[in-house]
């Protein structure tokens, strides 16, 4: 399947918007130490300061600079988002392809487990685990990826199954190719488009979850996160301070999620010729 991705993107304003935004966020995240005026966790004696030339977004209830927190928050979101999504995609690719190729009893069992995982609300399990195991950043990433692969596995298995029927797979099999060879040489390359869509939507899910968990107070309290900022700010929502404390992380979070959504939507449209071009001038 040769999709002209460049063409799709060029015509599509959604995608352009999404890519630009995401890149912006990435830059901010990468260069956080350079961009942030203060250490995000360093407290100052000046709490609840409104925005000033010293602190562009003011300070929070313990005097930490909100702008710096905002900038470092980008790091957390994107790091968790990308890593969890990457792991989840890899997992779903492995499970999906192996189920399709090996078939038989293995396939049946795996699919029951996948379906079971799909039905269980992930948040339930995460909260449960998090209540007992105080998750650090990496444990969180692991957790998110372990609970994020199931949807993708279904789709990938379906795709792999139909690819399996194609001539070039049978041909390779007749030459004695092993399943591993088939996976890497024949199936995965053709799966690349679907995997990318899964990856993008995985990022979206993971960012969502990370923010949500931070909001709940489950995540690592030492890591700066947009969700955590909003949680802290919420306690003081009856004060004016919400304008520069509560809103910025919320907006930043929404914009990030939006940009990923736009990119994902465009990718999906490019993949599925039935949906045709979403040329929204």
């Amino acid at each position, binding site marked *: 399947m040769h999709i002209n991705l460049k063409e799709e993107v060029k015509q599509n304003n959604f995608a352009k918007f999404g890519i630009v935004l995401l890149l912006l966020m990435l830059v901010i995240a990468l260069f956080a130490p350079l961009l942030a005026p203060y250490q995000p966790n360093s407290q100052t004696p000046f709490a609840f300061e409104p925005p000033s030339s010293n602190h562009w977004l003011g300070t929070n209830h313990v005097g930490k600079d909100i702008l710096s927190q905002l900038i470092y928050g980008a790091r957390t979101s994107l790091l968790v988002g990308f890593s969890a999504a990457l792991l989840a995609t890899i997992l779903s690719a492995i499970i999906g392809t192996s189920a399709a190729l090996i078939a038989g009893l293995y396939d049946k069992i795996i699919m029951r487990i996948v379906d079971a995982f799909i*039905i*269980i609300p*992930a948040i*339930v399990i995460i909260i449960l685990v998090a209540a*007992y195991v105080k998750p650090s950043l990496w444990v969180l990433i692991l957790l998110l990826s372990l609970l994020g692969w199931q949807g993708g596995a279904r789709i990938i298995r379906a795709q792999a199954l139909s690819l399996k029927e194609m001539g070039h797979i049978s041909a390779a099999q007749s030459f004695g190719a092993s399943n591993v060879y088939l996976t890497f040489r024949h199936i995965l390359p053709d799966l690349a488009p679907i995997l990318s869509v899964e990856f993008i939507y995985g990022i979206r899910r993971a960012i969502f979850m990370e*923010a949500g968990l931070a909001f709940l107070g489950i995540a690592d309290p030492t890591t700066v996160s947009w969700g955590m900022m909003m949680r802290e700010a919420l306690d003081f*929502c009856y004060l004016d301070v919400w304008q520069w404390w509560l809103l910025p992380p919320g907006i930043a979070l929404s914009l990030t999620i939006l940009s990923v959504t736009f990119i994902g*939507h465009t990718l999906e449209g490019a993949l599925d010729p039935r949906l045709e071009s979403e040329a929204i001038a």
Partner: protein
Amino acid sequence: MFSIRNLALYLIAMLIILALNFLLPRMMPGDPLMAIYGEEALVQMTPELKAELVERFALDQPWWQQFAAYLSTLFTGDLGYSYYYNAPVLEVILGRLPWTLLLVGTALIISTLLGIVLGIESGWRRSSQRDKSLLTGLMALSGFPDFFVGILLLIGFGITLGIFPLSGAITPYSGFTGAALALDILHHLFLPLTALTLCHIGGSYLLTRNTMVTVLKKPYMLVARAKGLSEFVMRYRHAGRNALLPVITRAGIQLGRMVTGVLFIEIVFAYPGLGHLVYEALLARDYPVLQGVLLIVAFSVLIADFLVDVSYSKLDPRIRYAH
């Protein structure tokens, strides 16, 4: 037929949750009783009670016996005792359950219906002005996490404009009854309901819209036009009805997402449902309550999914009357 296979599925899912619930506390280092009940609770227990609990949960027995003990306590409806709330866990949960049901149930129905209708309207004429605006709007909306939408509404209408209350499901100690009570409930319900609904319209909307594309290409749409039917009839009776089916199938997943959402919304609006209960239990390290709620929530979702599965077959005549 299909039920047996699917039933097995739900049973496996339940088993996984139960296993998790069972294993997690027991895998923690230290005294399993402390892991199950939490530090503060333990402090309050008498040694006799502790001994009794150890026996009930067979904590000094091999694993499989513990699991059997665990399952049997569950079947008797004993979800444990909450020392924080000073009441059996089940009771605490049942006290909060109705509010969450009200919130989630209404939100699910409204968001699905709205999503379907908007999806049909959008999908009917793709790339029209209406479609473009709806698509842009709803996609933008989907970017906002549940709690942020809730926060915005809270600040906007609750704090700034002061039209709606900031917390709770009813005005405490008001003594309202009848119509006044109903009104009060609605008043408190409005903002959280709006927040939850808005966040979840997108799902059904997008799916309906995309399905419409496939449906509109089918031959029976041309035939409908050839019969001289009005646009409204074609759009809803023919296209819409067929586009409905995948959305219903996905309703189960929608419910799962909504459960996640209601947790955050209840926290933002201090709405006394199960979600808020989880939050409180987390803060108080009240493990029995936490486990109990999560178990109940998970099971409810599974049951709801099962019901959706069953009802889907009624909706699609091709499945209902398969050859």
